[in-house]
């Protein structure tokens, strides 16, 4: 039913596309804006910035978040920084270079036009955030400081200690609360979106459940904006927050929105390994640690000795051995896969043999403990708080963990999905990072979408509906959607099984991690495609959700979210199986060079895979959006 996907990328030169398009898009005049209702689901960087900006323009905005406050959204946990092509360091940065680095870092699986626009507006984000009072790091002269980050040869990362995400989110949150006070934004906290409501093929509203009272509520609007984050929690253990889920995006997918590139997930190499079966989440340690730490495992399998007792000759500094040029500083995906290899060989360290050492003893001997403390003191403290081990005395243990998902709902150049009136922003869409995201680019994309892209493009859509009121919530489509939610709640409560939601989530996570984790192969993916639905069926038969639907019931909330993750997990496997190449975060063992490097297949896979829902029990249909590279040449990455 769908032809090849058209992203509606404007014609013209790369540099002129966005400028020209902004001029050619239709506008809604200021007096008419207040006649349009827009729903924004999610209050992270993308959602809060979009809602605040739309409110400032005069639209009637409704923000829905399942958090108790918009400020809790998981953007808050981003540590490192935000990229922007300001070239304040005079080191040769430019919009084009940021564009180029991002395209290359994404392993040539992102749209040129989107990425160029992202690089273009990046400079405005820094101005906006600074004006809002975001306390970015400064030099002694009072001007903004920058640091360098992986995948770039210039210093373009703006940061606020190790809490850049927090500060940027609080900036967007304050702008949002200003609009709430001004009355342009209506804020609904503890409201979880459970259905997308469609009418005449367009998105016209959502149905939410009030997490405190259980009340099922319809919200109608002229357009719906999803800014609901990524789906990393499909692995159960990830660096995502406990509540992160795919439900809003998935419910839209089930109503016809295409889900693009679900197999592109990013694994971060330096996380603290799980310590026991009840581990609830993994904590990320800044990648900067790899500048001074040396990564090693014992040569021998199951070497039970204390790390200090293992002489250098019995240690394997595997990254330095395999990649003499980059050593411990190889990109995230390479470092992660190699750690997995040695752990799978039985050479892992720690009580559960699930980590590799990150050893600072050499750096401390060279620079002195004080220097190391000055650079990494806060990270060392955090490590000690979590593990109870003193990293100044005992080598740290690290292991990769899922941390970001590049896939998401398919959107066109204007960030609208294939469902008219449904816009998707931030990590929830698939658009800008290709198969791999560079460090400090997630914050940039979320804010670019919310502050500087959507406020323009939404007008182009809305201008068609001038004078049309939003569909009333008394229409049958809303009643049906409300009924669907009520039925779903009753279904969970009436199963009366034996195991908790978390139990099944953990089991699902193990399957997804084993088969669709850092390295994938045909056999494993086929197993995933058969085992995930089997476990899912058991879940629907045997999950135990206690209590009632009219109170704060956390098991009930989770039940629906985990059900959606099951379906997503299966789709990830299908997507990974169909993509017969290795690129970025997607590594197929069948497609590697003799040295074990990822091998792309540009001839057959320079496209976006976007999956269409066909109803329960029927596999989704794979659609393609061909990627045209007019400006950059596709090359193979090498870090030898």
């Amino acid at each position: 039913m769908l032809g090849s996907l058209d992203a509606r990328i404007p014609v013209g030169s790369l540099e002129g596309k966005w400028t020209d398009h902004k001029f050619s898009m239709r506008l809604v005049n200021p007096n008419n804006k207040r006649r349009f209702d827009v729903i924004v689901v999610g209050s992270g960087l993308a959602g809060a910035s979009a809602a605040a900006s739309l409110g400032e323009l005069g639209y009637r905005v409704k923000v829905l978040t399942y958090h108790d406050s918009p400020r809790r959204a998981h953007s808050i946990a981003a540590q490192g920084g935000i990229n922007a092509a300001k070239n304040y360091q005079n080191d040769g940065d430019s919009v084009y270079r940021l564009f180029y680095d991002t395209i290359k870092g994404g392993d040539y699986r992102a749209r040129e036009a989107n990425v160029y626009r992202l690089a273009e507006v990046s400079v405005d984000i820094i101005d906006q955030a600074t004006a809002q009072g975001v306390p970015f790091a400064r030099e002694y002269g009072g001007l903004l400081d920058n640091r360098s980050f992986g995948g770039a040869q210039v210093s373009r990362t703006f940061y606020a200690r190790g809490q850049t995400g927090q500060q940027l989110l609080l900036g967007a949150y304050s702008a949002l609360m200003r609009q709430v006070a001004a009355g342009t934004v209506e804020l609904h906290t503890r409201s979880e979106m459970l259905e997308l409501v469609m009418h005449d093929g367009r998105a016209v509203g959502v149905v939410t459940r009030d997490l405190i009272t259980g009340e099922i509520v319809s919200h109608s609007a002229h357009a719906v904006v999803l800014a609901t984050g990524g789906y990393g929690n499909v692995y159960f253990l990830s660096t995502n927050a406990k509540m992160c889920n795919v439900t809003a995006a998935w419910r839209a997918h089930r109503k016809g929105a295409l889900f693009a590139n679900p197999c592109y997930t990013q694994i971060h190499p330096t996380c603290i390994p799980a310590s026991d079966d009840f581990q609830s989440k993994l904590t990320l340690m800044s990648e900067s640690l790899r500048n001074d730490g040396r990564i090693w495992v014992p040569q021998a399998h199951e070497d039970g000795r204390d790390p200090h007792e293992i002489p250098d000759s019995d240690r394997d500094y595997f990254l330095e051995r395999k990649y003499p040029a980059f050593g411990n500083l190889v990109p995230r995906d390479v470092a992660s896969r190699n750690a997995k290899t040695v752990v799978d060989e039985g050479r892992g360290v720690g009580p559960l043999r699930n980590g590799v050492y990150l050893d600072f003893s050499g750096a401390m001997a060279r620079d002195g403990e004080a220097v190391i403390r000055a650079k990494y003191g806060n990270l060392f403290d955090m490590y000690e708080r979590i593990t109870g081990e003193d990293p100044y005395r005992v080598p740290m243990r690290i292991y990769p963990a899922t941390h970001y998902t590049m896939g998401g709902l398919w959107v066109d150049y204007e960030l609208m999905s294939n469902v008219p009136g449904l816009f998707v922003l931030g990590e929830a869409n698939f658009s800008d990072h290709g198969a791999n995201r560079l460090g400090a680019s997630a914050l940039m994309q979320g804010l670019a979408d919310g502050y500087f892209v959507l406020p323009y493009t939404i007008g182009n859509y809305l201008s068609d509906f001038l004078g049309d009121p939003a569909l009333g919530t008394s229409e049958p489509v809303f009643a049906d959607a409300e009924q669907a939610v009520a039925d779903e709640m009753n279904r969970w409560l009436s199963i009366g099984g034996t195991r908790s939601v978390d139990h099944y989530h953990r089991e699902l996570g193990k399957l997804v991690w084993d088969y669709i984790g850092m390295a994938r192969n045909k056999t494993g993916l086929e197993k995933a495609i058969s085992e995930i639905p089997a476990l899912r069926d058991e879940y629907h038969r045997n999950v135990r959700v206690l209590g009632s639907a009219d109170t704060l019931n956390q098991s009930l909330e989770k039940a629906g979210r985990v059900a959606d993750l099951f379906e997503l997990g299966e789709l990830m496997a299908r997507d990974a199986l169909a993509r017969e190449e290795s690129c970025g975060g997607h590594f197929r063992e069948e497609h590697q060079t003799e040295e074990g490097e990822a091998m792309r297949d540009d001839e057959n896979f320079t496209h976006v895979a976007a999956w269409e829902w066909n109803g329960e029990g029927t596999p989704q249909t794979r659609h393609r959006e061909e990627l045209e590279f007019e400006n950059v040449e596709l090359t193979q990455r090498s870090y030898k």
Partner: protein
Amino acid sequence: MSSEINLTLQVWRQPGPQAEGRFVTYEAKGISTDASFLEMLDIVNERLIENGEEPIVFESDCREGICGTCGLMINGQAHGPQKSTATCQLHMRSFSDGDHIVIEPWRATSFPVLRDLAVDRRAMDAIIASGGYISVNTGAAPDANLTPVPKETADTAFDAAACIGCGACVAACPNSAAQLFTAAKVQHLNLLPQGQAQRWARTEAMVETMEEFFGSCTNHGECEEACPKDIPIDFIAWTNRDYIKAKVKNRKLAG
């Protein structure tokens, strides 16, 4: 290194906002000292569900001490015994075998209990909405390096901006005052050059909104001890000073 401990928990259970609450005792056996406090509660909940009892409602999200969602009163201390640590980062190695742990929700009139250990903290959002921002519309900002900010100023502003909005300061305060939360936000913006235009209006509005919901500070300093981000009460003093100045200046401007 890790070992297993047995604990007795006394947990506040309250079915809903209007319902009566009470303490219920649970045995938490075989808890790894490597587990976090919330993972310990996860384990207890898993066992409760298997026994057909409704799990204990408690809130958490990021579990790395930055989102501010979690927060429990543990043995009479907000966020428990470890200083500068949010509940989610507290680990069971801070406890010993046989310990008796009392777990309560934050308590303040403006933090009504929703269920068990979860409370409603929207009053804090109301304080932010009343003035915790710099009014700059998207797109209206000048170049970020137009206004230099002395590094010391930026650093101090950051110390205040580090607030995660967890509400521990209110919970720990014998007066249920929200002075530390409010002062942190006021001073974050008041210290920066970008925040000067609205300095006096902001201070007046935020302090007066705070007073509608929370108690009056008596300078005990409990908030500073409970704060997982070590925000000092000096910010409270500066806000008091700014407030009186604001009362004078705002009047002058009004003519």
